[in-house]
């Protein structure tokens, strides 16, 4: 089974960023199953209401600074949840603050990636991330 069938759940409050990310995932062939949430609460709600969704393999992409609930708190909750903790969580955020990097890894994020400011790098990062997601063995959530 190929990872082209997995669903990417993205929590990103900046719609500009979200669109750019989505476009680049699409360009890399991962655009079919992208679900956008505009903050942390929405992301958590998505997983709690998941029964209606057919897919069972997810990658969660989290921004850190978001209204209502930030990405670090979402990460904390996901990794404390016996069912959801198997899901790969990738922090994708503008800040490269060492404290945040440490904190996210302490809470068990699977990767921490900084959004590059130059668009060429940005494109290349999403392209690499897509290649990475494609080769991941992702456990299904049931």
């Amino acid at each position, binding site marked *: 089974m190929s990872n082209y069938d997995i669903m990417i759940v993205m929590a990103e409050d900046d719609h500009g960023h979200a669109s*750019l990310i989505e476009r680049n995932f699409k360009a890399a062939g991962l655009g079919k199953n992208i679900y956008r949430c505009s903050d942390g609460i929405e992301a958590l709600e998505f997983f709690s209401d998941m029964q209606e969704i057919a897919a069972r393999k997810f990658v969660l992409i989290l921004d850190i600074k978001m209204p209502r609930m930030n990405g670090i708190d979402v990460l904390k909750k996901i990794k404390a949840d016996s069912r959801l903790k198997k899901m790969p969580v990738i922090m994708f955020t*503008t800040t490269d603050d060492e404290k945040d990097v440490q904190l996210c890894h302490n809470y068990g994020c699977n990767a921490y990636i900084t959004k590059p*400011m130059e*668009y060429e790098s940005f494109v290349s990062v999403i392209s690499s991330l897509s290649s990475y997601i494609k080769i991941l063995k992702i456990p299904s959530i049931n």
Partner: protein
Amino acid sequence: MNKNIAESKNNRLKTDIDYKAIFDNSAAGIAQVSLDGKFLKVNDYFSKITGYSAKELLGLSFVDITHPDDIEKDVEFVEKLVSGQIKKYSMHKRYIKKNKKHVWINLTGSLVLNKDKSPAFFIAVIEDISEYKQKEIELHESEERYRDLVELSPLAIAVHIKGLFQYMNGACLKMFKAQSIDEVKNLRLVDFITRNDRRIVTRSMSFAEKNISRGRLLETRIIDFSGEEIPVLFVESKIYFQGKSATLVIFNDISAKKRNEAEQKILIDQLTEKNEELERIVYISSHDMRSPLINIEGWSKHLSEQLRVVTDFLNEETVKKQMNDDLEEIVKKEIPLGLNYINLSVAKMAGLLNGLLDVSRTGQIKMRVQRIDMNELIEKVLDSMKYQINTSGVKVSVADLHSCCGDANMINQIFTNLIDNSMKYRSDRRDLRLSISSKISDGYVLYTVRDNGKGIPESKFNSIFDLFNKIDPYSDGLGLGLSIVKKMVSRHGGDVFVSSREGSYTKFVIRLPLSDKNIPAGGNNE
């Protein structure tokens, strides 16, 4: 009867012998003196004290060998003896010895009477008390010295007996806002102590009185006559005061220290707050300010791409003919121009932002201090700049460098920035020559980086280390290199100095510690 007389004579004879023995062997000087003051008979010890032989003394009067200042008093006593007012007298007086030096003696004079009660002669018994007198003089001087010392002391000093004030020096009167000692005499010390501390002070006072000579150092507050409380350090010590057992107490006014502590605390609080604020700014810079940039950058690039598609389309002959010229102007010139400006501004803003973060994080990076082989480090730095050095014909000469102590990454950055500056600001009239050398001075190594470049005007020597301040405003770069150098050097507890002559040379001297002893723990944080 005869027998009685014989017995009595015998007894008298025996007694005479005893007197002679006492007279001759006494450890006191004894003299028999006539009523007109002449020495009639002296013992050996008297001669020894005065330095005159018995023979010499027999021709002299006691007045002849008495210190002029003591004659009057002695004569007075003698007159009283003769008139029967007193039976004997003692006084301290000085004899002038044969060698003209004076000797302090204790004289006990008495009068021996004839059977008819008329005066017969005097007996003078003298002891040498020079040693005792010397001690007395020294004691007196030392007492006087201490009194002066106490009186002039800037510390408030008081004496109390069983808790009642007996004495205060000038500083103490001033502290208590009292005019004179009379005002405080016999007042209770404890009544001048702040209410809450009275018990503890009382306890400390009885401790000092009963136990050792010095009490514990106590921090308390006194209440002066105006009712104002003054924070003091309080310590007691047992002494003798005017012959009585008393307690000396020192009040050290610490209100200035207290005030400083309070001010310092406020300052620290302010600094902490400012520091937190700065950290917030750094965080905001790293997140909030970058976010819109990503959009501007991303979308303008995306638009450019879309525009290229439209332009290609417009370039097709058939479409072009149908297009309005104005539209073509907009699509082909105005939009690309605008996008170009967006991109340039974004690049510039991103650069500023990253530079700002670099500088601010220089203060936060944890230092890994180790011994650094500078020859190796400089070689590494030059190696990483090999391309620029080779292509622009720079001649670099590096002396055998002393090693120092510090964080290798930071020191690498320091020298990279300096060498980079030399290359950036080289003179266009001659090839760049760069020399690096070192010497040891006072526990530090001084590294000199010297070039023959454009130089820096003296008026800019200070400002070149400021944030975003460029030596040449038209040059590339952000004007952060030297700010970072300065910050990194100061985290090592070192310093950086510049000297230069415009059109001739620039010399930077970096002072770095020779051993890790001189590096502030965890590095200086600004």
